[in-house]
């Protein structure tokens, strides 16, 4: 028999076991306190869509107090006007887990889960478990105005670029949150928020980044001849204008949106510099906004000059969300600082505000000198270039059109783009418009953007 008593090491092990179990309990407590709210309000949480809890949920209003969602007993009701209901459906969302809107992202407020542990303890005892009322930054009537004018699938997003408040966000096709489930209609794509989740080739709107790259790298005086088409590393790039644009400098090529010029410019800049600028403009960047979910945009210069040329004019593998493209215009307007888009304006518990809207920025994407040059070029594009239909009287609008090619069942079609901003301290508005398969940017997206900006300024934004 081994004579050493095992009691001493047993005591030691007991201390270790106790420490492990205390760690277990502490970690459980710590993780729930730290991440509990974030986990609970995750769009993956099936409990949010459980209709049973709806009775306790708060209401959702637009910035002017128009009710957009509220509970009647165990039923969730949405904006009374059916056109408005559809116009704001992607921002508001639904309680069935079909779309990712305020109903999911702000569930922690709507169901009162943002309260601290102590507050929840108190409310649990008081038996008053009604959640908070959420006020969104959007103007529902403005959204409806936009929705009525969207003749194509696509997205429109309008933001105050000084504060980052999203004033309107409309994605078409829409759905009726009161008529869910209607899954088969449109193959479910009506639930997709195209403004934040749709990834499109940016087309000529990419030339903002390409031009920024040229300015930053001192390539402002490059002059290329545009005979209407050019072949780079075996790939043929054309300009839609018969006979081409002729001799072009940077400003002229930007105004005319000359593909042949920018393709050569991208090749002259080289893959590394192009990639660097694209990354600075937040391509290939995962967005982590507190109250806003957006897919990543992508840019790759490819492996040869042909790919590089296409990537410089927003084709090849370039993909961007309409909201990100709008943010690029906003960053130009703000001397290179990209604001963070936010849709949550206020949260109120029984009329008492429990949230303070604070403007945030994403990053400084370019220097003020480059931003100023881009402002001039984008203003010129509206005054005498491809975007003349955006030249409204109410404010000095600057912008860039885009016509992005894509293939639909073997047939080449064009997305119509416009991104721009109003250079006006009283009306700091940035806008992004995409109309799927509509055709030229100058012909479809630009007039819509003009009428939206005009109307927004009329409303005092």
């Amino acid at each position, binding site marked *: 028999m*081994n004579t050493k008593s095992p009691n001493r090491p*047993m005591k030691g*092990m007991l201390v270790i076991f106790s420490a492990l179990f205390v*760690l277990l309990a502490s*970690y459980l407590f710590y*993780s729930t306190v730290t991440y509990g709210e974030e*986990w609970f309000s995750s769009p*993956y949480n099936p409990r949010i869509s459980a209709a049973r809890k709806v009775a306790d949920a708060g209401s959702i209003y637009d910035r002017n107090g128009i009710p957009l969602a509220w509970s009647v007993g165990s039923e969730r009701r949405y904006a009374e006007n059916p056109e408005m209901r559809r116009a704001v459906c992607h921002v508001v969302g639904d309680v069935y887990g079909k779309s990712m809107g305020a109903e999911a992202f702000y569930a922690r407020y709507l169901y009162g889960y943002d309260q601290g542990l102590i507050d929840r303890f108190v409310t649990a005892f008081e038996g008053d478990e009604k959640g908070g009322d959420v006020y969104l930054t959007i103007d529902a009537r403005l959204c409806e105005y936009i929705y009525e004018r969207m003749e194509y699938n696509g997205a429109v997003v309008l933001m105050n670029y000084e504060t980052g408040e999203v004033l309107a966000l409309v994605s078409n096709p829409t759905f009726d949150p009161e008529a869910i489930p209607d899954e088969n209609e449109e193959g479910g794509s009506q639930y997709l928020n195209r403004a934040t989740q749709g990834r499109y080739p940016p087309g000529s709107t990419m030339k903002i980044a390409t031009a920024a790259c040229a300015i930053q790298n001192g390539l402002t005086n490059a002059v290329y001849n545009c005979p209407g088409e050019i072949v780079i590393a075996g790939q043929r790039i054309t300009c839609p204008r018969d006979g081409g644009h002729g001799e072009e400098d940077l400003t002229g090529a930007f105004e005319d949106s000359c593909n042949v010029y920018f393709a050569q410019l991208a090749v002259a800049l080289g893959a590394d510099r192009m990639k660097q600028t694209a990354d600075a403009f937040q391509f290939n960047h995962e967005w982590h906004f507190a109250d806003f979910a957006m897919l990543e945009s992508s840019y790759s210069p490819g492996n040869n000059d042909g790919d590089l040329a296409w990537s410089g004019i927003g084709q090849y593998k370039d993909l961007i969300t309409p909201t990100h493209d709008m943010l690029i215009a906003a960053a130009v307007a703000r001397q290179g600082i990209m604001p963070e888009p936010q849709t949550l304006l206020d949260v109120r518990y029984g009329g008492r505000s429990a949230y303070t809207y604070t403007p945030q920025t994403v990053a400084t994407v370019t220097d003020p000198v480059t931003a100023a040059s881009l402002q001039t070029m984008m203003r010129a594009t509206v005054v005498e270039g491809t975007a003349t239909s955006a030249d409204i009287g109410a404010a000095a609008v600057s912008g860039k059109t885009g016509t992005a090619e894509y293939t639909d069942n073997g047939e080449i079609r064009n997305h119509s783009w416009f991104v721009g901003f109003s250079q006006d301290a009283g009306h700091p508005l940035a806008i992004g418009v995409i109309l799927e398969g509509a055709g030229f940017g100058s012909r479809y997206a630009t007039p819509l953007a003009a009428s939206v900006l005009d109307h927004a300024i009329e409303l005092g934004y």
Partner: protein
Amino acid sequence: MIIRRYGVAILLAFMILFLLSAFLLLSFREGAFDSAIMLSGTVFAAFVLVQYNVLAAVFRHLDRFVLLITDFLQIFSIIMLYRLDPATGQKQFIWILVGTVLMVIALVVIRRAGNFGRWNTLFMVLAVGMLGITLVLAQRTHGARNWLTIGPFTFQPSEFAKILFLIVTAYYLSTRQRKRDLWPYFLFTILCVLLLVAARDLGAALLFAGTFLIVFYVGTGSLWITLGAIGAFAGGAVASYYIFGHVRTRVQVWQDPWANYNDSGYQIVQGLLAIASGGLLGTGLGNGMPQSIPVAESDYMFAALCEEFGIIVGVAVIGFYLLFIVRGVLIAMDARTKFSKLLVFGATCLLALQSFIIIGGVIKLIPLTGITMPFVSYGGSSMLSSMMVLGIIEGVAVKNGEYDEAEITEMGGELQ
């Protein structure tokens, strides 16, 4: 003594009240009163009362704490299972009944038997045989090949091999003076762990290896060999990370379950969402959605409990396990023979590791390995083996009490 019994009565009364009110809530869940569910709850309450009183009367030296904690954990188990699915709850009730019988048998055997002497060789062959047959015959479930089907029953042989492993461990470490005489035991342990790893039953492998390391250290007192063995097992664990894809997946999922939400991370995320949704006080019984967690009734009982009863009860359950462990170690320290000491210590260690590994996995403190939560998770094999472990601990506790009584009588005193 009288005061202690008074305390036990209050505790029991509280437990029964908790059980009955929970079943009252459950009976009204479908709108109309479901008398079958209320009846089940009442019968279980009666069972707990009878079981405790009969056992305490028959075995005067029974450790009441350990038994009461087990009862409490089983009450949580029955409530949660009836809430998730009454049919599963009913089956669990039967397993608890059978488990109680096995517990009493284990208690009596341990109280009477010595260290099983030569039987240990047979135990080793039996344990390795069971694990080996499982590996060859078993069907895959949840990535592990650890179930055997015999007729209408499916059972998990590793659960029963555990008991044999505990006895063999205590026997060798208490009877062999020289470390080189321990080679059959080392071989046995390594074989068990390898068979479990091959069956992809990582949780059980971790449990065997961990129990071996701790009991070996306690039994021999040689820190250096223990550290060496820890190094060897750690090396094995690292190697398995590189060799087996499923081990790598588990670690990746642990690091970021959200990134793997659509496949391997789904269960962990759903568990965390459930715990977060319950918050401090829980949603209340029947108000949560624990059914959205995959295998909520077995591995994920802890998340289901936290959702509906709150993390307060989660912390309390962790406390119950710790109390159980403290009592187990005290019984081990009080035991008269080294075999009994190591047997009870090993049994306690096993339960400690098992509850730590599964709770830690569910709350994402450590990578998740699918093992059951002792006395709480649904499952016949798990419940029966946990109850046998309890029987071993109680057997030694009774033996300790009888020695105390004999010593006091010898001195002319009387034990109340």
